[in-house]
């Protein structure tokens, strides 16, 4: 009885109900969109970091992490790769040689990180091959090929097929070096990465540095799912206590922190929107109650008890807010499912974004759990906002209905 009365009361002042619904709708769309956008940016940043930079897990010789010397390769590599081959959560792994050195052209010389890779394995673990903008055919099949970024090439004024020289310390501590030919150019969205990383075949660099062909400084592991990162890391670390096994969160702590912070930040933002909404709802419903003083007085006079009056006003508020919320969520869903495919082109700001490793196009995305949490928050807001107007209604005197001044 009270439910249907409240529902019917919603449409008594259409304009006012629509204003409340509209503000809940708009508030929610803004909130969800902002969360989805920020979330999309974070997810993309993490995925791109995992796919092009850190992978899920990395393995090193602990000494190598302290002191980037060439001789600190990963111990027991044969047994280790055996374990990796048989671990089911691992999609692929890529051993690498990484040496800090110099790259020199006729014009200039730059400090770089020389990465010796196994192209076939690297191809699965990272997506660096997809970032190649220009290359000669069969670029890693040449005698001494090197892949550098377009940015570095421009900086050093070299092109495809240019000769450059790599210089670094060998295992014996002597300075050594060799000429390489630029066979591929790549470009990622991360400027710092581009200027630092140059790629050569593992065997070629191993030979020059004085390492065996199966030795590596680093093994990058790609898992089937990020959810397995912590467990898999534990397993490997337990089996090989003399090596350092790190997850991407550990390797890029700022990224891990960003994810953790983003969640709480989004809720703070959402709560601010909801508080603003709550004030609007309270104010409007308060007006509705005052406008209906006589009628509410009449209802109490003929025997509608306080609990029912309270419930009636509360339900009205909740119905109006929830209608707005549902409409808001549906519209948000439509907007997001469209943008999830097309993305939002941030080219205008891309310069700035790229410096932080973001892509030009952001794909807003929101987890189901966020939708659920937001609906719960809206319900709570509606309930809390309905308390004041409902209490106001209780304070009205039934005698006002009798007085016609």
């Amino acid at each position, binding site marked *: 009885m009270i439910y249907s009365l409240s529902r*019917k009361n919603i449409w008594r002042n259409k304009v006012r109900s629509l204003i409340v619904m509209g503000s809940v709708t708009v508030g929610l769309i803004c909130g969800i969109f902002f969360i989805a956008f920020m979330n999309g940016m974070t997810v993309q940043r993490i995925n791109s970091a995992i796919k092009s930079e850190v992978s899920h897990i990395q393995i090193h010789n602990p000494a190598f992490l302290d002191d980037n010397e060439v001789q600190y390769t990963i111990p027991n590599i044969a047994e280790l790769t055996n374990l990796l081959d048989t671990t089911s959560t691992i999609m692929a792994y890529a051993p690498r040689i990484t040496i800090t050195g110099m790259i020199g052209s006729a014009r200039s010389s730059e400090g770089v990180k020389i990465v010796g890779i196994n192209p076939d394995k690297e191809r699965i673990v990272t997506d660096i091959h997809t970032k190649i903008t220009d290359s000669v055919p069969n670029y890693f099949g040449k005698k001494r090929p090197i892949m550098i970024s377009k940015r570095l090439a421009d900086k050093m004024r070299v092109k495809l097929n240019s000769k450059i020289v790599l210089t670094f310390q060998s295992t014996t501590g002597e300075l050594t070096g060799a000429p390489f030919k630029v066979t591929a150019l790549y470009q990622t969205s991360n400027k710092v990465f581009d200027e630092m990383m140059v790629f050569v075949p593992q065997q070629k660099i191993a030979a020059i540095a004085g390492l065996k062909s199966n030795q590596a400084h680093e093994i990058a592991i790609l898992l089937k799912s990020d959810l397995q990162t912590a467990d898999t890391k534990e397993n490997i670390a337990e089996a090989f206590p003399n090596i350092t096994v790190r997850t991407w969160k550990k390797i890029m702590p700022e990224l891990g922190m960003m994810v953790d912070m983003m969640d709480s930040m989004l809720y703070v933002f959402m709560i601010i929107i909801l508080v603003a909404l709550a004030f609007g709802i309270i104010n409007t419903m308060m007006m509705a109650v005052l406008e209906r003083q006589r009628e509410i007085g*009449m209802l109490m*006079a003929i*025997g509608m*008890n306080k609990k029912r009056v309270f419930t009636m006003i509360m339900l009205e508020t909740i119905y109006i807010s929830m209608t707005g919320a549902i409409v808001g969520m549906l519209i948000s869903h439509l907007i997001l499912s469209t943008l999830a495919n097309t993305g939002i082109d941030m080219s205008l700001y891309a310069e700035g974004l790229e410096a932080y490793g973001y892509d030009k196009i952001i794909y807003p995305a929101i987890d189901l759990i966020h939708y659920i949490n937001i609906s719960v928050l809206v319900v709570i807001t509606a309930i809390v906002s309905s308390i004041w107007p409902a209490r106001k209604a209780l304070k009205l*005197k039934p005698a006002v*209905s009798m007085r*016609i001044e």
Partner: protein
Amino acid sequence: METVIKVEKLYKIYNETGVEVKAINGIDLEIKEGEFTAIVGPSGSGKTTLLNMIGGLDNPTSGIVEVGGVLLNEMSSSQLIDFRKNNIGFIFQSYNLIPVLTAKENVEFVMQLQGRSKKECSQRAIELLEAVGLGDRINSRPAKLSGGQQQRVAVARALASNPRFILADEPTANLDSKSTENLLDIMLKLNQKEKATFVFSSHDQRVVNKARRVIVVEDGKIINDDANN
């Protein structure tokens, strides 16, 4: 006949604005079952204040109000709501009906508050609306009804809960003379047929003429009561 309403040494002094207003200045009154009583007097004489206290809508400053042998003075506002629901029917001058409900739903509403069955509510609502001559308008909302028709729905609503008596404060003040006469005839008919006790106020002579007992108040006092003549 059994006494339904008993008022003794009733005083009501308003002091809201800092100025004392003696709205009821010592009233003793008894109303018996089946009466059709008009309380008359000029505007400001205290009619509404008196009815409010008889109806348990307001507390007296001093004195006693008893309805069906039950003392209203000591009840809390929640107890009063419950008491009104089961014992008193109200007809106000206006704002009587719930605008979003139909005539029938309005009449059913009080019975639903009493917790009666759906079927019973529906049946009695139709009966009562027919009795007030609105059998063909049961599904109309108040806005679609004339002022006179709305007051007739209010009469049906007031009777629906089977109250001990029905209070009506100037029920005809907003009606033209034809509707006024019509409404009073209906009230009289129900008074006879359903043995409903009516206490209503008015300052309209035509209304007063229909009453069986007339109580005249002035300055918060009863200055004449036919029952005593």
